């Protein structure tokens, strides 16, 4: 996982891009576009929507380059927060017009990447899916960001506006609970997850 130097590098690129340095911006774009597009494409069904949302996110990012404050977090966390807000707006509109009248942002965001009702062909994965489905929407979103999108705990915390310590504690606690549950399934769960 890229570390502190990568975060410093991105922050420096933002400063240079803000001064009109096109090479710096291209390097920044190369680093951020795959993460932003991957995050959005994994959560919306239509490819064109993912492309539009990516463009909206990165246009907003460029419009705000001069407002970047390194003391408030890394560049990646910042652009991903913009992507998340853009996605929330999109999902709210879609929910109103196309799908069920979902208004709960937490559920929208948790289940955009991970459907608790989904089915896995591998019983070991189904077991984890079922165990994770028992947790709160925020926790499910945190796990999707970390294990699905490969973000760091610091980045997840910044995106969800929580402290790093709180995020870390929630990951630790949930992982322990998942492990306990997977190691000690109830008889009903054992039957449900037995290989067919």
């Amino acid at each position, binding site marked *: 996982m890229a570390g502190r130097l990568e975060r410093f590098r991105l922050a420096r690129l933002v400063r240079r891009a803000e001064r009109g*340095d096109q090479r710096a911006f291209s390097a920044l774009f190369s680093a951020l*576009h795959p993460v932003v597009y991957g995050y959005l494409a994994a959560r919306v069904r239509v490819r064109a929507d993912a492309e539009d949302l990516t463009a909206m996110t990165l246009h907003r990012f460029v419009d705000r380059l001069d407002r970047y404050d390194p003391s408030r977090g890394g560049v990646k966390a910042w652009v991903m927060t913009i992507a998340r807000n853009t996605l929330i707006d999109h999902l709210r509109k879609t929910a109103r017009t196309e799908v069920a009248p979902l208004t709960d942002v937490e559920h929208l965001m948790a289940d955009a990447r991970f459907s608790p009702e989904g089915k896995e062909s591998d019983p070991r994965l189904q077991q984890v899916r079922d165990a994770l489905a028992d947790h709160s929407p925020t926790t499910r979103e945190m796990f999707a960001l970390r294990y699905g999108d490969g973000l760091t705990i610091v980045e997840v915390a910044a995106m969800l506006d929580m402290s790093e310590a709180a995020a870390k504690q929630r990951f630790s606690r949930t992982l322990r609970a998942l492990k306990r549950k997977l190691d000690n399934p109830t008889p009903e769960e054992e039957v449900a997850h037995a290989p067919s």
Partner: protein
Amino acid sequence: MRLRDRLAALYPAPPTADPEVRDALEQALLKKLPPQRPSPWRRRALFGGLAGLAFAGACAMPAEYEMDFGHRIAFSVDDEAFDPRSLSDHIRGRFEGIEEMRISASMSVHESDDGTPPDMQFDVVLDIVGKVDGDAIESSLLDHFDALTATDIDVDAIDETVHGTFGGMVSHRALGWVIDRGGAEAARARILAEFEAQGLPPPSRIDVQIEDHDSPGRHEREVRIEVEADELPQR
């Protein structure tokens, strides 16, 4: 299959972007950038060079340096049963190519008045020099130490190209690593090597002074480097 792998397998990899759409977006964004203006830092450096001695002027000359100082792997862990000393054995036993490794670990305990148990946290940094795969070490640590599952592991390859000035190079944090590991002699050798690599005559003087200041719970190291040469490395 470990829990970490099972969790990752729950989320299918997202589709990759269409390169044409991606490139068109990059071009559109490039057009939004303001006209290029010079770095304020460079202006300050130039001013310092004009106002100071010949050495200061030389310091403001642009230069570019490739630096390779191995890897730094850093993480925090809050499991009190975790023993940082076990890292060294594990990594040495599994990876070849490690020339030198240093582990620094600190522990902090946070207590609150509300009756909750104290929160204990280790901060561990591994400095590894040699031809090793930092990502492989990260995966290996995650596989071997359950306590690291819920932590960020930062892996930094310290092989930066430093764009700046010669003065910037000698004060760069990477040189601090050389000094930490090998002291003044290593720093002197590193500077000489830089001159040699660029085909320049060696400097007439390299003065590296290191002073350590210890006080209870605090260690400070002051480093002063002066180089005099007819010609300094340039871009």
